């Protein structure tokens, strides 16, 4: 029985999951609400489900990395999120880690290519 697809279906989301916080923090330089962020990220090739992103935003808020505010002046109330100073600090550090990681992993993959 070929279970390759099933294994990949588990591994790919796992690979993505770790980078989600970084992707989300990168977009929060200005106030945005959850669903627009879902659409934005998806349009930019970072697929994320609303039921993942919304709880994530709340977790970031609880950790004190983002601020939030309800926008109630329009007929549709929406909760907007934005990075604060602490969030920006964490984002910059994560970005450094990411850059290093990409470099290292790329090197590993290139090695693999050479060896066949």
């Amino acid at each position, binding site marked *: 029985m070929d279970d390759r697809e099933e294994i990949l279906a588990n591994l790919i989301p796992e690979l993505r999951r770790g980078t989600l916080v970084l992707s989300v923090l990168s977009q929060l330089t200005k106030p945005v*609400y959850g669903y627009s962020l879902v659409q934005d990220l998806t349009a930019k090739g970072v697929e994320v489900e609303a039921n993942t992103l*919304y709880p994530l935003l709340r977790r970031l808020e*609880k950790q004190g990395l983002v601020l939030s505010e309800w926008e109630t002046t329009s007929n549709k109330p929406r909760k907007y999120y934005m990075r604060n100073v602490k969030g920006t600090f964490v984002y910059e550090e994560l970005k450094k880690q990411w850059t290093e990681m990409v470099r290292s992993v790329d090197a590993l993959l290139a090695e693999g290519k050479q060896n066949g």
Partner: protein
Amino acid sequence: MRCLRRANKMDNQEYVKDQIDRYVYQVSRFLSGKNKDDIEKEIRSLIDDMLDTRCQGRDVSKDDLAAVFAGLGRPSELAARYNDSKRYLIGPALFPIYSKVLTVVLGLIIAATLLKNLLSIIAGKFSWTNLGNVFSEALGFFAIVTIIFAIVEWQGLSIDEIFNGIMGGKMDGIFDRKINLPPVPEKKARISRSEPIVGLVFLGFFIAVFIFAPQYIGFWNNGGTGFVSIFDLAVIRSVMWIFIICFGTSVIKEIVKLIEGRYTIRLMIVTIFSNAVNLVLFIYIIRNYPIWNENFPVQFMAAAHISGFSELQDNWSMITQNVFVGMIAFGTAVDTLSCIIKTLVYGLRNQEK
């Protein structure tokens, strides 16, 4: 005509609102904490946005609702994503130990109750109700073990901390990053897991029969009254509490063996204590209570159609009083001495500082 269409539209809006209310309510049932209302409000706003994007101004249909709800997932699962910490009855850290303990406990209980039933079959007193009790007793112990572990989980106790307590700091170090693992014991100082487990299984059998069915320890008289016990049942029952103390210390000894996994001073002390308590209490019982069935040899020989050997009956009290005590004392001494020697010769080498 126009009125009718407007009425339909109103109905539809109410239908959609009602369905959203239902979904959000189901989610809220699984939410906890002070942000509950805020989360509900945000999910409502999210559903609105999702429907808007999907319908682009046209009326919302049942299919649209179904698709949006499917995208969000089951209410309980969506709520679980909001509830920070994963909540378990028994979490993954605790589960391996839980399942091990459960296997041993349930194995013992089932084996003991089955044995009880087997004996009742031999005695001709078998009933299906008794066999049914195997299930309910197993279920009872399953519940007890599960509740204990669930409390540990709920209290957030880490199993490493607990073991740290029991094992007197053996696991220290892994958790404060000083590498301080216990040294590998010499081969002869090791106690394999199976030894105390087999010990516990036999103890379990014996305790179950001794406490619940001492009448079956003896022999089966075909022609006569069924089992003839080697004990005087009334006396045995009156001193049962002393036996229970003996069994208790023996069980503790085996459990300490299981936890230590090697000969240590701690285990040696427990062994000496347990064996001493057992021997003293046993001699006390034998000397002070007529626990033996006085006529056992005669009854046995009659049933087995053996004649002669009248000395056996004549000397029965001497045999039970002295020979038996001597055997028990010898066995206890061997066990204690072998433990002391193994501890002092092998156990002290390679010990943790």
